[in-house]
């Protein structure tokens, strides 16, 4: 094809518009986060003062930020461990064992992934409601009517786990389908010979399935970190808005509050920089720690 006339212009008109759009709406804003974090810039006035790393110094003495940091890490750990364990287990059952109704379960488990987080948050707000919520309704069946309700979204010690519950509910199906796809690539013969040698289903899972999908597992783990930081913000924004008293504030919700609601842009962007560095550093560490010798089929 390279012999055509006007090849250069063709390539230009095909690739330049997309690349330009990408530069304007993704590269420049990312760059701006890093640049603006070095300025003291608040309100809608155009006045900006360069203060170097001043915002970062304030940040690490800001108790609310440290609380958001702690909440984010807690959510990443709790949600990723439980979600990935359950998703792996369900994927193994659905792809390794034949039984009636498999398709039905696969379809149902994926449903949360197609719903808007607004909907899931609103549904869970209703489920967790202290007066006429579903969860307290179930508890009342055991404890009897008129029992003291649990304040799932009011008690500062519980609320972060209530959020984690909603996040796990949302994520299981997605990761399950991911793992099912990579488990489908494992040749059946491996399981057959293992079965002849007398290996049980559980042994097969740990000796064959897990090592062979390990690389896929590592990739999902890396993406999980970035996605949990993002998801926790989306749930918090609708369900709690960081409250009560900052007990559910997470990285992005605190950044959004500072930069958008309070209009302290410079400070907000400094939080953004920390989030960027944190998520890439954590992904890198996880990637290193989970490195194993690759097994090829």
């Amino acid at each position: 094809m390279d012999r055509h006339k006007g090849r250069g212009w063709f390539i230009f008109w095909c690739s330049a518009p997309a690349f330009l759009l990408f530069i304007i709406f993704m590269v420049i804003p990312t760059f701006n986060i890093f640049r603006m974090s070095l300025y003291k810039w608040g309100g809608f006035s155009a006045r900006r003062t360069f203060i170097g790393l001043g915002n970062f110094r304030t940040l690490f003495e800001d108790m609310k930020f440290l609380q958001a940091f702690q909440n984010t890490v807690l959510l990443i750990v709790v949600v990723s461990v439980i979600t990935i364990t359950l998703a792996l287990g369900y994927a193994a059952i659905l792809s390794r064992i034949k039984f009636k109704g498999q398709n039905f379960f696969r379809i149902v488990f994926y449903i949360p992934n197609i719903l808007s987080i607004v909907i899931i948050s609103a549904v869970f707000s209703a489920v967790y409601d202290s007066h006429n919520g579903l969860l307290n309704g179930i508890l009342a069946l055991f404890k009897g009517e008129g029992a003291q309700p649990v304040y799932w979204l009011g008690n500062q010690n519980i609320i972060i786990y209530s959020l984690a519950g909603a996040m796990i509910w949302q994520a299981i199906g997605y990761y399950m389908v991911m793992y099912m796809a990579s488990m489908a690539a494992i040749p059946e013969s491996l399981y057959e010979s293992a079965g002849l040698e007398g290996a049980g289903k559980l042994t097969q899972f740990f000796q064959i399935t897990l090592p062979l999908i390990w690389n896929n597992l590592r990739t999902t783990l890396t993406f999980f970190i970035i996605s949990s930081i993002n998801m926790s913000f989306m749930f918090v924004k609708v369900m709690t808005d960081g409250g009560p008293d900052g007990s559910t504030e997470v990285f992005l919700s605190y950044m959004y509050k500072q930069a958008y609601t309070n209009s302290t842009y410079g400070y907000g962007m400094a939080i953004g920089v920390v989030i960027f560095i944190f998520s890439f550093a954590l992904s890198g560490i996880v990637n290193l720690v989970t490195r194993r010798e690759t097994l090829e089929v």
Partner: protein
Amino acid sequence: MQYHKPRPTASAIASRFLIYLVLGLLAILIIVPLLWVFMASFKQNSEFYGSPWVLPEGLYFQNYVDAWSKARMGDFMLNSAVTTAMALGMLLIFALPAAYVLSRFRFRLRRLMNISFMGGLFINVNYIVVPIFLMLVAGDKQLRAWGAAPFFLNNLFMLALVYAATALPFTVYLLSGYFATLPVAYEEAAYIDGASNLTTMVRVMFPLALPAIITVILFNFLSFWNEYIIAMTLLSSSTGPKTLPVGLMYLTKAQNARSEFGQLYAGLVLVMLPTLILYMLVQRKLTQGMALGGLKG
């Protein structure tokens, strides 16, 4: 080899039972909250003060009428449909030629573009929503200084453009991966027939890439239709247009204060229904597409 199905042993029956129990539990956990919302959308307000387990006394459709007109869900749904359609259209116009050229032609900036789009996969839109907002604020300020009407904020077209731009990395990545699998013979044949680069691309290659295009449309439809952080930020004026998820979020907040639950649940069903119906129609395509496209955070 003749193979007779062995009679199920007691332990086989027990393990089968266990599998259904484990799977059934998750299925119930996913279905019950959604069914419960659906049921609650038909309840009158007074019914919400009783037990959450009671079935609605009748089908109270007034909730839907209220949600549609009083809570303006009808307008919001139209806004969402327009935004999603515009965003999908722009995305395909920009991404298809770029993906094709990047996978088929060798040119100087190709490597840089490929690496940039790959890097873009790791930038979550919610990380950069505030700088995008500030950029559009600055644009509007400039327009006002020139005596023109503000254009960039509270504009569905701009929202759609931001959606399209930020979906580019994933879309280009998926599409160019697919183009790379198509044999070059098609283009060579078209070239011998005297077709130009443009004709070859539009008439020959795009139709061949239809499966990948459909996957791209499905995934991006869901993410545009459900998105609300960017929409909430860029459509901040109280008199301006809102999309469905944003309208629903305000309804959640307002309803908690005014306790008109029926309307809220009806609103939830209205937002859920289109995606659920689409999912039922294309669920196989969607979960297969996930394996094809790899990851999306």
